[in-house]
């Protein structure tokens, strides 16, 4: 792989850009791999990347039924933060946020990580107490956050209306080192690095069966032929329930559509990410100038990847109260993604009832921020069977009552 650098740009400029290579190969599946990962989204690719980087496991295939990063990786609102309440979550998300800081250098691929800061608005007294508690918890966890006053919120976000009649801004949980990144680039950068290590990223290859023998996985059948494997990682987000069914076990997960929308591009007006959990809306401005707006989930199981109009109305109605200028914006487009939600709103990174099958799912409405950390931890879980960051996130926590309860803060926006 030729490295990207300022010298490469100069070299290619001198020869009409005729020498750029394809970023990743498009190989045919081989008959056997050490590890097969189902799902070439951010989490699946990051898992493969760290298997190769940290443990030298390079006979790896990542199979994907659609196209690379075409699921929730390319549909989220790209927010990165780690201000969680519970210790296991804070450890995992903070590891992830830290990995984002050096990701562009590590992958030699510009993921446009922008640590512009994230505010979670407190708009009820309940939220004020909740976020103060989170700020104290974060101090103990070594995650840098602070609870800020409405005046400081107004300084950081001049377009905000802190004296809203229904939901005034009473404060905010501020994480200065949070921010955004280009979500497609994260998937592309990992795919390029995986391909460079000799791994096969196989697109348009849907898994149709998971072959087992004596309670152990031996391979998968796909639309592009059978592939044998020693170990299998299932990293398929909204379709986790379906793929787990192929392997013969159930999950404590329900899949729902979560939607987002963007406005027409406007001049720079907001250089931080603002989340308003009480009214179920969050907003940031992309580098193109579009206001990127995330909304709530549909209230029932579905796999439609489109969302619904009345939820857009709910989200926008809430936002124009907090950001009056939004009322004059035209919305450009809207889309939905299928998110896999667990009972305690925390992910599952776990062994499964089938030996050598590992599952990474349940990220619900907030998996993008965790992409590198999830891959880091999942690789260790697949390689060693356990790991310090994943031990608390096992499937058995539901049976044993060891929830990592993040749903107390909000049902959305995690």
């Amino acid at each position, binding site marked *: 792989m030729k490295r990207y650098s300022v010298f490469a740009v100069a070299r290619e400029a001198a020869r009409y850009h005729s020498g750029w290579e394809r970023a990743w190969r498009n190989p045919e599946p081989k008959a056997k791999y050490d590890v097969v990962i189902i799902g070439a989204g951010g989490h699946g690719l990051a898992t493969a990347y760290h298997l190769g980087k940290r443990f030298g496991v390079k006979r790896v295939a990542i199979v994907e039924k659609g196209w690379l990063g075409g699921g929730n990786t390319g549909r989220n609102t790209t927010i990165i933060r780690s201000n969680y309440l519970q210790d296991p979550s804070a450890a995992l998300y903070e590891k992830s946020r830290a990995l984002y800081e050096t990701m562009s250098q590590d992958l030699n691929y510009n993921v446009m990580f922008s640590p512009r800061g994230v505010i979670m608005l407190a708009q009820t007294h309940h939220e004020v107490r909740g976020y103060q508690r989170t700020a104290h918890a974060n101090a103990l966890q070594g995650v840098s956050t602070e609870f800020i006053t409405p005046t400081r919120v107004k300084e950081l976000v001049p377009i905000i209306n802190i004296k809203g009649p229904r939901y005034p801004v009473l404060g905010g949980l501020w994480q200065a080192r949070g921010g955004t990144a280009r979500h497609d680039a994260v998937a592309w950068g990992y795919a390029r690095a995986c391909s460079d290590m000799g791994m096969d990223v196989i697109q348009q290859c849907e898994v149709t069966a998971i072959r087992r023998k004596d309670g152990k996985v031996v391979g998968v059948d796909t639309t592009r032929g059978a592939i044998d494997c020693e170990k299998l990682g299932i990293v398929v987000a909204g379709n986790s329930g379906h793929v787990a069914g192929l392997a013969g076990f159930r999950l404590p997960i329900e*899949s729902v559509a979560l939607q987002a929308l963007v406005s027409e591009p406007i001049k720079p007006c907001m250089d931080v990410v603002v989340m308003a959990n009480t009214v179920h809306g969050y907003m940031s401005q992309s580098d193109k100038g579009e206001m990127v707006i995330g909304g709530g989930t549909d209230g029932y199981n579905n*796999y*439609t990847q489109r969302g619904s*109009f009345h939820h857009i109305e709910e989200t926008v109605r809430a936002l124009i109260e907090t950001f009056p200028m939004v009322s004059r914006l035209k919305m450009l487009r809207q889309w939905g993604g299928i998110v896999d939600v667990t*009972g305690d709103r925390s992910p599952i990174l776990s062994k499964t009832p089938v030996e050598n099958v590992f599952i990474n799912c349940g990220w619900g409405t907030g998996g993008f921020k965790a992409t590198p950390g999830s891959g880091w931890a999942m690789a260790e879980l697949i390689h060693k069977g356990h790991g310090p960051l994943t031990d608390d996130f096992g499937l058995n926590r539901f049976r044993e009552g060891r929830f990592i309860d993040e749903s107390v803060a909000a049902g959305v926006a995690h």
Partner: protein
Amino acid sequence: MLILTCPVCSVTAEETEFHGGGEAHLTRFGPGASEEEFENYLFMRENPRGVHFERWRHVYGCGKWFHAARCTTTLEVFGTYPAQTLEPPKTLRAQISKKRPGWFWRGFE
């Protein structure tokens, strides 16, 4: 936008008038149940790509609970039926079979 008919008050309305209540026909387990039964009852959920049975409540109408059969990939509503039943009615199951041959959901087909 789903359009549902409440079997209690017979009103047909948009989904904003209703509220979803999750998986239908769960068997409650309590004291004396095994850990696995309790885990299944509390946390494990059907999450099918296709035919699904759910509880709904007519919150901005008569306020009553009822059941609905729905497709999770097309959002087609196959029908609604009263809450006072432990399983989907036979006639409804037959109707679904005409539209989705070979469907199954938690032992029903």
